[in-house]
């Protein structure tokens, strides 16, 4: 797979604050990359260095295999965290202007803008001024303006914040579709559930450090399946089993954490002998738990 972005040992310090510290990551074509971390962890700073808005103090950033160049940026679509649109400009004019700046001809830009507005169900608003639209609508317009020039690399800073669930799903599906077409998508978020559903690769940043990174499967497999959910009828004496480190018993449903390397199958046998088991599930840890586990409960997800 072609590597579109590569950061190697990148560090960046603002005045007296270390924003990014010795961070390395790479994003391949056709993948969805999640940049995770609590607020102020250094996600935005990292993104800004990828597209040359700021330069790293040390380390190297390569885009499409080369050091930063303004031509390379035409192959990138960037959505900043703040919703940046000209308030008094008409939607269609705005989209065409942004696309033209990225090298598209006016006619082609207009055609694509209309197509995208159709696709994201905002065709009715195409001739309205941006300031007349709701926040969610504006976000969709900015989303479109990021994609009009058909970038190979799509970088989005908190793309789903502030959207209602229906629209969030609409945009998520669009990104998945673009990924299937071979584009690389990177987005930052502090919402674990989105990353868990969408991403192939993740990088979890805390205090400018990558604390966890790699493929989603691989990251999760590093954590044991040591959570058990049991639904039962009858006696709960099996909860005293030596494999259990701690448990919560909610009348017929027990959430159990096992001791390291404990034998879950033996627990099932004992439980089945003493009560009627309707459900016995070994749960893999959610990303959220891993997140909290790693960052130490400071996450504000």
């Amino acid at each position, binding site marked *: 797979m072609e590597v579109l972005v590569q950061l190697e040992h990148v560090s960046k310090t603002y005045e007296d604050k270390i924003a990014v510290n010795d961070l390395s990551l790479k994003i391949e074509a056709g993948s969805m990359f999640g940049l995770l971390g609590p607020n102020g962890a250094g996600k935005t700073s990292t993104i800004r260095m990828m597209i*040359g*808005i700021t330069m790293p103090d040390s380390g190297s950033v390569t885009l499409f295999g080369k050091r930063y160049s*303004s031509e390379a*940026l035409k192959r990138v679509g960037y959505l900043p965290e*703040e919703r940046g*649109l000209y*308030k008094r400009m008409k939607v269609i004019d705005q989209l065409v*202007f942004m696309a033209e*700046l990225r090298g598209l001809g006016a006619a082609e830009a207009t055609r694509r803008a209309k197509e995208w507005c159709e696709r994201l169900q905002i065709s009715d608003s195409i001739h309205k001024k941006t300031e007349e639209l709701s926040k969610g609508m504006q976000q969709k317009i900015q989303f479109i303006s990021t994609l009009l020039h058909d970038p190979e690399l799509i970088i989005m800073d908190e793309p789903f914040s502030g959207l209602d669930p229906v629209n969030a799903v609409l945009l998520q599906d669009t990104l998945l579709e673009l990924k299937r077409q071979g584009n690389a998508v990177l987005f930052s978020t502090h919402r674990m559930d989105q990353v868990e559903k969408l991403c192939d690769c993740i990088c979890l940043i805390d205090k400018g450090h990558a604390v966890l990174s790699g493929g989603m499967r691989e990251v999760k497999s590093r954590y044991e399946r040591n959570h058990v959910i049991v639904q039962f009828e009858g006696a709960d004496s099996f909860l005293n089993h030596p494999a259990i480190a701690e448990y919560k018993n909610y009348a017929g449903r027990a959430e159990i954490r096992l001791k390291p390397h404990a034998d879950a199958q033996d627990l099932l046998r004992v439980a089945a002998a003493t009560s009627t088991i309707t459900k016995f599930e070994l749960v893999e840890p959610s990303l959220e738990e891993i997140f909290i586990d790693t960052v130490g409960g400071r996450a504000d997800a």
Partner: protein
Amino acid sequence: MLSRTMLRNTLLVAKREYLERIRSKVFRITTILVPIGVALIGFLAGVGGKRLDQGVRQLAIVSNQPQLAADVQSTLKESEHPPQSIEVFAPGTTADLNALNEAVEQHRIGGYLILSRQPGQARPQATWVSGSATDFVGRDVMKNAVTDALVREQLTSRGMTDAQIKALMKSVKLDTMQVKNGQAVASNAARSFAGAYVLILVLYGAVLIYGINIARSVVEEKTTRIFEVLLSTASSDSLMVGKLFGVGAVGLTQMAIWTAMALVYAGSSLAAALKGHGLASLGLTRPELVFFPMFFLLGFFFYSAMAAALGSAVSGEQDVQQFIFILAAPLVISVFMMMYVMTNPSSAISVIMSLIPPFTPIVLYMRICAQTPPWWQIALGIALLAASVWVMIWLAARIYRIGVLMYGKRPTLPEMLRWLRYS
């Protein structure tokens, strides 16, 4: 290749700025309201001027000598702007005076003149009574009228006829000339002033409207973070130059519309005048016609670039208000210096001031209007101004570019200087 991209981006930005502004309500409103405002000011100034010239319209004369009263009355009636009515009370009584006081208080008359002279005396005791303490015009008119009447009285007593006296006392018309290029040519002080005034007015208005407009639009791009997206595709130089060109084109479009409106308004009479006497009939000489648009444009770009730089340095709309002062200050100072520069166009202060870029557009133009300065001073002033426009744009682009790194707080001067070195 890169420069072609830059040119393309610059034009795209300029086009956007131009179209957005041309379509805006503000543009339509100012395009219509400003000429109406100017016409209104002109009308009011005309009316005010007339009233001043005319002085007091209704007045009365009270005197113990009927002949003296009649002489002053006829002098006033023969003056350039004769009052509508002059009542004479000779001899006047205390009751008359009381009635006149009441009339002044009720604004039925502008004032009354008391002339008392003992028989055998040459000079009368004259008192002008009016409703206003600041009625300088009325005071002067009365003073001249009484003096004239006394002179006439003396001349009559020495046997001159009325016609002779009239011919003798007619005021002299004074022509003024000015040395230009070693020759004395007809000059018109009022016209020279008018040219400079119009430039100041137009430049000041344009800077206030469009300079602040530019600063606002820069601030908008910053606060909405549009510039993050823009800067991820275009250089800050092409963004800044594009912005200035776009807004500059809007300013020129508006000027062109106003000029066209003025021409249509002036209509055929102007065309006839042009045919007969050429440009001179417009009150403009050829160099002024060249320098006016030149200094307007250079001044406009200088102040616009300055506004863009200021807009780049601040973080919010409110801060822009505080910076308007910095923009307007050099223009205000130029206005204060106007009298001095027009009367001393070649003094050291005038020369130095005309070479300092913020003052150059107005002060150098004033000097050109008053007395053609050495060509090298004109060339140097224009060169310095043009160079400083370039420096301002460069500076604005750097500050804009660096502003990406800033969130929230307003940068201090040392911080700005540090940024300049970084970019």
